[in-house]
């Protein structure tokens, strides 16, 4: 997996998760936003995430809870079809805000 981050504002970041989002990369992802208390808004770009397992889902949930505790939000951006299927099968699509475009995701962060 390759992880790229981009600071959108001092309190908001865009993270791009390329490849598999599984146990091998969880710590790396957590360091980016969960352990950084200044981050309130996260847009997780899953447009090139080929697979997400239960540990990856648990990491997203931790990120969601962390950002909401800080008065922010975590938004999933353009999940690939395999990721979308897993989100639907596990009913996690009821939990996350999912955006089709970056503009939509940024608007959602501003609305939170």
């Amino acid at each position, binding site marked *: 997996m390759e992880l790229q981050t981009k600071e959108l504002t001092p309190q908001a970041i865009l993270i791009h998760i390329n490849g598999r989002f599984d*146990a091998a990369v969880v710590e790396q992802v957590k360091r980016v936003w969960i352990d950084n208390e200044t981050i309130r808004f996260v847009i997780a770009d899953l447009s090139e995430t080929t*697979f997400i*397992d*239960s*540990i990856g*889902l*648990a*990491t997203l*949930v*931790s990120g969601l*809870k962390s950002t909401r505790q800080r008065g922010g939000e975590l938004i999933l951006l353009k999940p690939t079809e395999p990721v979308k299927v897993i989100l639907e*099968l*596990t*009913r*996690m699509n*009821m*939990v996350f805000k999912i955006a089709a475009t970056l503009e939509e995701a940024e608007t959602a962060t501003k609305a939170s």
Partner: protein
Amino acid sequence: MTDQTLGEVAAYKKRIAVLESELDEMTSALAQAWDQLVPFLQAAPTQATSTLDIVPVLESIIAAIDARMGAVYLKRGDEWVTIPLDIVTVRDFYKYLDELASGQILHVHNIPAWHGRPTHWMFMPILINGNVAGAIGVGLEEGEREFTALDARVLTRMTERAASQIVAANLAESQAREARLAREVQIASLIQRSIQPLTVPRLPSVEMIAHWMPASTVGGDAWGWVLQPSGQLACFILDVAGKGLPAALGAVSLHTALKMSLRLGLNPVDALATVNNEVYEAYTNAGILATATVITIDPSSGEIEHANAGHTPTIVRIGNKWSLWNASAPPLGVLPTIAPQSDYRVLESGDLLICYSDGFSEIETPNGFWGTQGILNAIPDQTTSVAFAVQSIISEVENFPDYGAAADDQTIMGLSLL
């Protein structure tokens, strides 16, 4: 004697006096060094088996340098530990690792110590193959004297002398810790195995089969069954995200909670909702989640009720028609409250119902994940025995080239009416 001779004698006497004075100073320094060296040599263990053995060494180094405080820093796995604890925070020590890699003594000022006052420190690294494996540091409060070149030399020599013992002690302690952890994992494994049912229910009208195989000594999967006060059979399958001890601990506690709630007569929806309320906060703190499917079946009528929170789809064959019963709520621990929906059916003889963990559907094959379709394809078309259906699935998995190196726990549970 001539004046010249007298002058030479006086000069010699003066020179002798200087040499005597220097000899006195050297004798005194030697005595002082000896005083420092003897307790250090006595303290330095020849064979350290625990980091406790390091403490006398550290104390003698502090005494020899006449420092206020001292600490030994040791790398243990990916973590740094200090002996004694919290003299200087590990976080502060991290900052100097690159500089210490030079192998030279490092002086650092304005470090907050445990009492909150600023201190200054002198660190001597312990290197193994060019990497910093540890360090010995001695400190003074800011405003006290500065460390001298002699202090630095003493610290260097003493660190060199004690380094092998310190590293050996650290290694011995790491090995002891690993052995302790292995024992703990073994105990956790025994506990986890003890909660998995040894048998399936013996009911005249219900056939049940289950197979549980953790990917390592312990795992996050579990299954169970219980007879409810109404006479219904309740069974469940669960999967705590993650591997190893944390997942196993979560699986054991979730197994107990689900079993208790079903034993008290709750239906699948209420059991999942109630248990979710209980585990939500703990799972939030621990950063975990769990999926679960709960089923009750009335052995006399074949009526089943099914609820699925985030778990893989349940495979159901009623008559000749296959269907998937998907999750109707997110996994446990994700939301403070959940409201799963029930699926109701009446099973007839020959109908099949199979639940499985993602350790089956996420098996990687040359064509991608095995998936639910792979599981369906493994079930012989005309079989009416759920035991045969489940055994066929397991047999196919065992024939995969990488069988034995399962990436995830694998649990499967099947029900049918006789």
